[in-house]
């Protein structure tokens, strides 16, 4: 079958690879119908997650049709049209039973790597490096889905493939931040980053009752989407002082909840951006935390900050004093997909959550390297490149 593989730093290839097999009783094999680029893939592509092996199939946000089921699968059958959570979850450990699915104890077969980095191993993720299990990814004609009863969800009639696709990761990641970040009716929410996850966080904040939602980015086409599809007010960080703007817009208080949807390769104008770039390139810090720093300073006293962007290890010049003295809550998580995907599909079915506009570039799998180039360089207004294997 055809698949998109990581071939080295900033190199992707489309190769013929063997088809996946049922390896455990709880597996299903999916024929992939839609699979999309995600901003976190860029960290793999750029070499910031140094656990990629040449030949690894990438891709973790996808949906498709079940073509084979393991003998232990109870809830899925051949022919089901399903969307799949990007993180793999066993459904049986304490973390899964408490709906912290991305913290699953049993789905990362390489725990020695992340235990050393973070003190505990987290769950595995499809197509996201050997640190998170080494699963073959979804940018392929077929993909193996372990623990399919836990992590795959039948797409309701009336919800298109193009819409359901983003329940897999972008919208469920966003819902993780909105829910665990504690967005309440009447809140003011600020979201850093107007990519797929940021836009979904803005829309879902409004759905749960936030009164005002601000989205911060620099790309006009993404800010326009945030206004149109999420009803958000937008701030171009290259044109203004974000903290001052937020103070002015929030009666001097600052946002109640700040959601960071940028991650370890944040851009920043001015000396701080240069400082972070130099330190990261010299490997003196692994991540550029520009947006998190800004959120800590902008957040109202006693408010909360949620990091949804992917970070790998260590950051520098973190305003811990502001965090402590302002009584802030800082929280983060990878996506707890199965906790949110059923509700997202309901919202999608009622047309309360639309996502199709994110798919600015739809193309066959054979054009994936070009799709990633557009996505990485933000060319041609690319928000997400979606592949149709």
């Amino acid at each position: 079958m055809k698949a998109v593989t990581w071939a080295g730093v900033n190199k992707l290839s489309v190769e013929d690879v063997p088809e996946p097999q049922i390896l455990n009783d709880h597996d299903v094999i999916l024929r992939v119908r839609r699979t999309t680029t995600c901003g976190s893939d860029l960290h793999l592509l750029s070499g910031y997650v140094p656990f990629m092996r040449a030949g690894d199939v990438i891709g973790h946000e996808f949906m498709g049709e079940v073509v084979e089921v393991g003998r232990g699968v109870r809830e899925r059958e051949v022919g089901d049209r399903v969307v799949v959570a990007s993180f793999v979850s066993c459904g049986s450990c304490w973390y899964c039973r408490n709906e912290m699915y991305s913290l699953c104890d049993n789905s990362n077969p390489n725990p020695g790597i992340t235990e050393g980095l973070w003190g505990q191993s987290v769950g595995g993720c499809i197509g996201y490096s050997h640190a998170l299990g080494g699963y073959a990814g979804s940018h392929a004609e077929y993909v193996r889905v372990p623990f399919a009863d836990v992590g795959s969800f039948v797409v309701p009639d009336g919800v298109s493939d193009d819409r359901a696709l983003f329940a897999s990761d972008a919208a469920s990641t966003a819902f993780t931040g909105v829910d665990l970040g504690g967005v309440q009716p009447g809140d003011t929410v600020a979201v850093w980053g107007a990519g797929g996850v940021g836009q979904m966080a803005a829309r879902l904040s409004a759905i749960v009752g936030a009164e005002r939602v601000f989205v911060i980015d620099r790309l006009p086409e993404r800010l326009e989407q945030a206004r149109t599809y999420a009803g958000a007010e937008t701030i171009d960080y290259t044109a203004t002082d974000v903290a001052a703007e937020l103070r002015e817009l929030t009666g001097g208080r600052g946002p109640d909840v700040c959601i960071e949807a940028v991650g370890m390769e944040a851009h920043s104008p001015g000396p701080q951006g240069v400082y972070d770039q130099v330190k990261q390139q010299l490997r003196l810090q692994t991540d550029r935390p520009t947006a998190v720093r800004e959120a800590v300073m902008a957040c109202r006293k006693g408010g909360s900050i949620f990091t949804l962007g992917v970070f790998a290890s260590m950051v520098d010049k973190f305003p811990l004093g502001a965090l402590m003295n302002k009584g802030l809550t800082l929280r983060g998580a990878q996506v707890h997909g199965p906790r949110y995907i059923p509700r997202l599909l309901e919202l999608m079915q009622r047309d309360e959550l639309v996502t199709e506009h994110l798919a600015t570039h739809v193309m066959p799998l054979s054009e994936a390297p070009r799709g990633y180039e557009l996505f990485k360089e933000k060319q041609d207004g690319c928000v997400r490149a979606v592949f149709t294997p």
Partner: protein
Amino acid sequence: MPNPLLDRAADLGGTLLGRLQGLRLPGVGTASAKDDPVTAARRWRVVTVLVPADRVGSGEDLPAPLAALGTLIEVRVTPAPGDKGTEVAARYRADSSEEEIGRLRAALRTAKQLLEVGEVLRMDPRPHGERAQTPAGRLLDGVVADAKKEGVL
């Protein structure tokens, strides 16, 4: 064709993963313990499983990966607080090597999977493209090969 240099890189990857667990450099191995090898060898290695204590068993009735270590290890089974299941702790009765501790870590992890899930996650064969035989690639092969038996457990 075998390439001794690349094989050496793979060996080095596994060794490196083990050594990194003991380093205290910013960004690497910060979760590790600074125990000296003798103290580390005597520590209980513990996993918590979300099953009642009577499901864990004892002696030959322990899950197969632990039972296979027989009388080489001692095993302690206690209820975890807060309805978190059962703590399963194990350590060698006598002095043990890094290799043996690695085997015990892997045994505890697979025992936990058997108790909670009923089977052990399999990963191979998996689809992949051309595996370029570079030193960095083989280094990662070595890291991955040892990842089941390394870590802070």
